[in-house]
């Protein structure tokens, strides 16, 4: 795992001092709120419905046990004993005091963490694959590039006030687990025939009001020149991105307006200048910088073991398990344990989606401390945060899986629902967020309660369900196989359903099925959608394939038929989306 050198450490320490001064000026009235706002946002500090909210970066999702313990400590000392892991590899605290934020940042700085650029109209925390460095299907470990670009983007002076926020994702595996195409810039790492590391650049993806998947604008950029290429790209966006309309300010609108070819041409023009001028200059990443960073991402001291498959494993542990446990453990192996590059090891996903009891992605300080201990005991003291709002112990010996399962079970972290209907992505919604049109968390809870039969969930197979409390789409509802979006109609909370969204290599944007529903209808609507799938699927066909084969009609008919039977009266009013 990356370790700060004195440059990184100096930077975050000085950043704490800078922010402390800004907070002081705000508190003594010499800095107006309007002017403080973008400054605090660039330090992840929002003002929310009930309190300030602080968003802390977990660059490319990597955490040490020590860092997690600090996050738990902060939750206890400065918040209400829990934190919320988000889809973009950050953690949010919902109840912080403005006066205390500099102290929180100082605590973070002690463990090489910060909240720099986790919000605001600048380059945000860079996200990547939670399984980077261990995934069976990885062809390039993206972390050195992530780290080099983290440094390059940190407090970048030219791009501190972009038209809108700017999000990078970086992938180096066959299966895209980064939602690459939903980012302002997606960087797909490759090796060229000479074995050199290059990048394909996708631009102009994003969710929100106008969901758009990114377009390929440049192939085979050598890794060394990424700073100048990305400078060119951001410069074009900074100069020509729309600033007159908040909803049209993202790069996706610029790329769409110009067309990806024209956008690519303009970037190329700018890059030709920068790159020519700096051919021999110091803009390029050097091998020395690569080496300095990459040495932190070498493999831990794995034992030399032989690989065992899940069936063999289950069989091996059977003797130690009673009948109930056997089923639970086997399911967990199936859903929560992922293949590893190194024989005899596995990666384990700890589910932060207990059925109906906590918000998706929430962890208490007790859980965080326990998870830190688990990572020390079973996974070299490191862990990862996933886009789906779960945590991962990436390097677990297969022989230790049962021990880990038993220990994690104590903390309610072993629900075998990874990738299943109840592994819901949800934003904080109306319970916390001042932008929300509707609540998301009670909807997630109601769905989890309706579908809490694990046999049934397993039988349904992989289905993604994503919920956002408003069109900003923090819950990524557009790319859920089933998406739920909170909408406001005449001051009432309604929910719109989208179907057919998908993240990953076959990314697609879901389609709205029709008029929206009341909150209390949503569990029934889900049941109708799922029943339709079960009736129509052939063999092991996953939900998304059945949907793609049949289209929206049968799902739509079922959803409205059953809902209308129950709720005729309500639907007669306000039945349009």
């Amino acid at each position: 795992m990356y370790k700060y050198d004195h440059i990184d450490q100096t930077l975050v320490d000085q950043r704490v001092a800078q922010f402390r001064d800004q907070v002081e000026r705000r508190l003594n009235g010499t800095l107006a709120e309007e002017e403080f706002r973008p400054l605090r946002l660039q330090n992840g500090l929002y003002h929310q419905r009930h309190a300030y909210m602080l968003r802390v970066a977990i660059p490319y999702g990597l955490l040490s046990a020590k860092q997690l313990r600090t996050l738990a400590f902060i939750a206890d000392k400065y918040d209400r004993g829990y934190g919320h892991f988000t889809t973009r590899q950050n953690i949010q605290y919902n109840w912080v005091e403005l006066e205390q934020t500099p102290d929180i940042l100082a605590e973070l700085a002690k463990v090489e963490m910060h909240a720099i650029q986790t919000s605001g109209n600048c380059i945000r925390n860079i996200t990547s694959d939670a399984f980077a460095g261990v995934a069976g299907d990885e062809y390039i470990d993206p972390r050195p590039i992530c780290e080099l670009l983290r440094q390059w983007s940190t407090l970048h002076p030219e791009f501190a006030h972009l038209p809108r926020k700017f999000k990078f994702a970086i992938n180096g595996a066959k299966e895209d687990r980064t939602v690459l195409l939903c980012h302002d810039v997606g960087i797909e790492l490759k090796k060229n025939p000479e074995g050199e590391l290059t990048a394909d650049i996708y631009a102009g993806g994003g969710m929100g009001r106008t969901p758009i998947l990114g377009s390929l604008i440049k192939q085979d950029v050598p890794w060394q020149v990424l700073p100048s290429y990305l400078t060119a790209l951001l410069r074009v966006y900074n100069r020509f991105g729309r600033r007159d309309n908040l909803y049209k300010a993202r790069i996706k609108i610029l790329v769409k307006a110009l067309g990806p070819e024209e956008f690519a041409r303009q970037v190329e023009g700018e890059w030709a200048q920068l790159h020519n001028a700096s051919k021999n200059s110091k803009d390029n990443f050097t091998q020395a910088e690569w080496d300095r960073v990459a040495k932190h991402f070498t493999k831990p001291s794995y034992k030399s073991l032989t690989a065992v498959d899940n069936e063999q494993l289950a069989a091996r542990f059977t003797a130690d398990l009673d009948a109930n446990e056997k089923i639970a453990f086997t399911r967990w192996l199936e859903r929560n344990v992922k293949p590893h590059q190194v024989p005899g090891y596995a990666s384990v996903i700890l589910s932060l989606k207990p059925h109906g009891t906590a918000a998706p992605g929430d962890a208490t300080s007790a859980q965080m401390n326990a998870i830190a201990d688990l990572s020390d005991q079973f996974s070299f003291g490191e862990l990862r945060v996933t886009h789906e709002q779960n945590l991962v112990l990436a390097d677990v010996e297969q022989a230790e899986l049962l021990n880990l399962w038993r220990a994690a079970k104590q903390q309610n972290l072993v629900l075998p629902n990874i990738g299943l209907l109840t592994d819901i992505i949800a934003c904080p919604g109306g319970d916390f967020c001042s932008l929300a049109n509707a609540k998301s968390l009670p909807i997630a809870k109601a769905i989890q309660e309706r579908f809490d039969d694990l046999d049934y969930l397993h039988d349904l197979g992989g289905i993604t369900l994503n919920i956002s409390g408003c069109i900003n789409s923090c819950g990524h509802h557009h790319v859920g196989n089933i998406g739920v979006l909170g909408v406001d109609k005449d001051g009432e909370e309604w929910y719109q359903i989208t179907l057919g969204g998908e993240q990953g290599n076959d990314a697609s944007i879901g389609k709205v099925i029709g008029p929206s529903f009341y909150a209390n209808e949503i569990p029934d609507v889900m049941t109708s959608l799922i029943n339709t799938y079960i009736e129509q699927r052939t063999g092991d066909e996953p939900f998304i394939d059945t949907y793609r084969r049949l289209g929206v009609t049968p799902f739509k008919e079922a959803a409205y038929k059953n809902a209308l039977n129950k709720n005729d009266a309500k639907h007669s009013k306000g039945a349009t989306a």
Partner: protein
Amino acid sequence: MNKQIISFPKDGKPTLIANEWQVWDGERDEGGIPDLEHGFHKVLVPFHWWITHHKNTDVINRASKGEIGVWFAADDDILKHADIIEAGKALWPVVGAHFPIFRDGRSFSTAALLRDRFDWQGEVRAIGDVLIDQLLQGARVGFDAFELRPDQKLDVAPKQFDLFSVVTQNSWRDQRATIATA
């Protein structure tokens, strides 16, 4: 307008100096550049105004005395007028880049382009809604003079430049710190 500006030459220290340049908005242009507030002979004219008026005799006269510079609006596409800017290099002692509101960062790119694309060696001055919390970024992309918004505290401004002793990307003023140079 401000009596003082912050001057921060690339190889110097930030200091407060007297402001010699008045920023003119280009309005009331029937009679050419209007009389300026007492004592100010030097004026920054809008770049678009320069484009249409720079062949007028009185403009040529004033410019030859070193009394005219231009300022770029945030939405001026300076690359479209590269020839005029190239010619201007010999004429303007100072150019400005305007911040219509502090959180509009286009002029950061304008300054960067002036420095790396046009190799502009003279002063580039930040004007408009310039707040002390923008100084550091401005200094790094290519600005070497700042006319702060009048309500800003001039005394705390210069210390903004000392907040960071390390940077992690190259810019006009500094090279990123790497372990080799650390």
